């Protein structure tokens, strides 16, 4: 429930829009510095430690659809994150011939309630890609600027991993990694044969406690359901809630920010939001506004914050807001390992994600595409849910009986039942997640013809993949085939070819979209400066993925967190100096 603590007119030091990774971090750092903070969140409150919010440790039959996905839980009925690609009453549009699927979570903690917890630092090269291949732009900052913040994030939030000394995969302050699962050892065997590295993954899951407020992982493999022991990172449990406990933080939930309000000098004065409870508009005032509503939503709020001083949207004199939108690439393959048929049963859940992964390992100057990808692995004896046992019409012929004879395709009866039983746990899959080239032509803008149910103009997307990404996806497919075949796996389905862009997912599907309010030293080609401060509005900051100049071959969130911390430090010092 939203509750109004400040009387109208009384101002907060800082208003933070959104309680996800970026907004959560800002709420913690700014409140610890002694400032009064309002966190304004479009979704409801959520706390996985509350019994009524718990989906963890539930069996599939506790869901009438056996854990199948629904419109507002695309990753399954037990998934913690509420929202998805298609939210009732909150549409978005696309230009013809272009694609973009926009994933949103509406709740305290935002998308960090589901996220895969893969927590990779960007490396030195990732900030200076233009220097390497001439494409896109360099970041105005480098690894050395963010390193101290990555270190702090590691210690505050916790991440397991192994020190490897790989230049562009910087090591951190790691907790102990879990031992590999059996199918991961098969993958490692296959990858070894073709010289592809497979090493312990890096996930923000506590294999050891890091403080007295959060428990340690008890290996249920369900981080996406949110952890009642707070042993995985989500912004609500690890940042916003602790900040509220210690500092002057008011949390406004069900509050959909429409715009940042400004004065006649064009400075931010606060926000206007629609309460979802009574559908009325409210205003809050502050000295500083911090946007952490997610890359596209923050761009939307800025574009919708038009005024006399900012006729094209707040701090959009350059016309750059929404431009350079980019997501990671993604393509997948799966198969099954006949050696794993009839396997011994034991609890193989492990942590809520892969125990091993493959960082980008090649030199792009020797390849026909510019940027790399990492590989995520899955499979084994994870808990069956809706979909398990499907496809026996094609799979069963690969399951051989004790005499080595293949089963029939399809079928029924005791033989079918036995084969599914024997087959359980023998699946493996892999997903490439890669870097795309940020381009001016890929953007989101305000759709002048459409509003959402709160009356707020919605986003219209315009996004196409280029040859770079398509060639990269082709390379992924070749790699997957090599690794799986060498791991002794039987590949499922046809190899994705040119007609499907080699299985390349539509933009937005990998949910690493960034770049819409990119940072730069030149106000003509960027929206915020290297401190994530809007070029044309000094008391407005962006702490989500918007300021990314390029999204590396790694997942973005660890960098969002480090950057948000750095930005918050800057806000603290500017506030103290009375510069804003």
């Amino acid at each position: 429930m939203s509750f109004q603590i400040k009387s109208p007119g009384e101002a907060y030091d800082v208003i933070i829009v959104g309680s996800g990774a970026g907004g959560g971090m800002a709420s913690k750092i700014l409140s610890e510095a002694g400032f009064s903070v309002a966190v304004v969140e479009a979704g409801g409150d959520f706390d996985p430690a509350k019994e009524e919010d718990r989906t963890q440790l539930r069996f599939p039959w506790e869901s009438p659809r056996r854990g199948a996905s629904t419109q507002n839980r695309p990753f399954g009925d037990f998934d913690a994150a509420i929202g998805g690609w298609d939210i009732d009453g909150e549409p978005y549009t696309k230009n013809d011939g272009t694609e973009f699927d926009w994933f949103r979570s509406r709740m305290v903690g935002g998308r960090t309630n589901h996220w895969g917890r893969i927590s990779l630092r960007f490396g030195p090269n990732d900030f200076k890609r233009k220097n390497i291949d001439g494409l896109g732009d360099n970041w105005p900052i480098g690894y050395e600027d963010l390193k101290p913040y990555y270190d702090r994030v590691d210690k505050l939030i916790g991440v397991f991993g192994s020190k490897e000394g790989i230049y562009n995969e910087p090591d951190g302050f790691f907790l102990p990694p879990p031992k590999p699962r059996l199918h991961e050892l098969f993958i490692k065997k296959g990858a070894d044969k073709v010289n592809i590295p497979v090493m312990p993954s890096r996930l923000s899951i506590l294999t050891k406690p890091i403080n007295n407020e959060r428990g340690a992982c008890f290996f249920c493999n369900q981080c996406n359901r949110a952890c009642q022991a707070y042993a995985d990172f989500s912004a609500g449990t690890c940042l916003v809630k602790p900040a509220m406990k210690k500092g002057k933080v008011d949390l406004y939930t069900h509050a959909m920010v429409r715009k940042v309000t400004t004065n006649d000098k064009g400075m931010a004065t606060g926000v206007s939001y629609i309460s979802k409870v009574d559908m009325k508009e409210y205003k809050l005032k502050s000295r500083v506004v911090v946007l952490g509503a997610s890359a596209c939503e923050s761009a939307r709020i800025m574009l919708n914050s038009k005024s006399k001083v900012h006729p094209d949207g707040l701090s959009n004199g350059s016309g750059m807001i929404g431009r350079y939108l980019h997501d990671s690439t993604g393509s997948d393959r799966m198969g099954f390992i006949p050696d794993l048929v009839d396997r011994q049963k034991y609890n193989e859940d492990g942590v809520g994600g892969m125990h091993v992964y493959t960082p980008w390992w090649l030199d792009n100057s020797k390849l026909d595409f510019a940027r790399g990808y990492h590989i995520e692995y899955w499979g084994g004896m994870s808990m069956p849910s809706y979909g398990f046992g499907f496809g026996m019409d094609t799979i069963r012929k690969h399951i051989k009986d004790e005499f080595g004879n293949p089963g029939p395709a399809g079928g029924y009866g005791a033989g079918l039942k036995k084969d599914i039983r024997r087959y359980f746990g023998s699946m493996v899959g892999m997903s490439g997640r890669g870097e795309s080239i940020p381009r001016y032509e890929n953007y989101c803008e305000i759709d002048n013809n459409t509003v959402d149910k709160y009356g707020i103009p919605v986003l219209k997307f315009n996004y196409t993949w280029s040859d770079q990404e398509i060639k990269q996806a082709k390379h992924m497919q070749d790699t997957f085939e090599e690794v799986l075949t060498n791991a002794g796996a039987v590949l499922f389905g046809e190899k994705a070819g040119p007609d499907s862009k080699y299985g390349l997912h539509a933009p937005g599907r990998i949910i690493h979209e960034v770049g819409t309010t990119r940072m730069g030293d030149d106000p003509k080609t960027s929206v915020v400066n290297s401190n994530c401060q809007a070029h044309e509005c000094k008391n407005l900051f962006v702490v989500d993925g918007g300021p990314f100049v390029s999204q590396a071959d790694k997942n973005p969130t660890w960098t969002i967190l480090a950057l948000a911390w750095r930005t918050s430090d800057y806000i603290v010092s500017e506030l103290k100096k009375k510069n804003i």
Partner: protein
Amino acid sequence: MNRRENLKLLFTGSLASGLFMTGCGPEAPKEIAHAPTIGEGTKWGRTPEEMMRNAELKAEVFFREDEMKKLNYLVDVIIPKDDVSGSATEAGVPDFIEFIVKDMPYYQTPMRGGLMWLDTQAEDRFGKPFMEASEDQRIEIIDDIAYPDKAKPEMSRGVSFFNTLRDLTSTGFFTSPEGFKDLDYKGNRPNVWDGVPDEVMAKHGFKLEEKYIPLYMNPDTRSTLAQWDDEGNLIG
């Protein structure tokens, strides 16, 4: 129940000892007073819209009585009782299918049409509806549609119906308590992951990489607070 109490339940008896979770070895999870009570009573994180939708779907009826009878027969042909576990009907598969076709309406016409198609086949072949045909006669029709690689082209409608029914029956069965018993599924409970059991490693000829052995999560030290030196080496 507040978070602290909840954590206390999860990792019994540690808060008072100064260091959170001290002495909480591999046995600790056994003491978890955590018996999920699910079903109508709890919210399990559902939004009001979700609760409403689930209740609405449950209140609707899709399959007619005669269809349900056919479905009961067919799911047990697909997943019969054997010496490991019970049959599909014993596992409640027809109720699951009833729910899922309402939840995912694209199943409705193929399922209804497929059940009807069995009757038309039985009429054409034996002059009576499917359920009135003899067991041998029914199996004759099923055999014509159950093996996609061998089925005659004119059977393709029946084949795709039976593929769908096989999918839903299998998934319904293996995601039920009976199915978990059948699979001997051991997960979904607190535990301490310490790698693949030795005998399984040996069976497949795997060894852990030497260099990682000292780094891996160690059940004996997993309860102590993490500490690092300045180089990021874990020292506690």
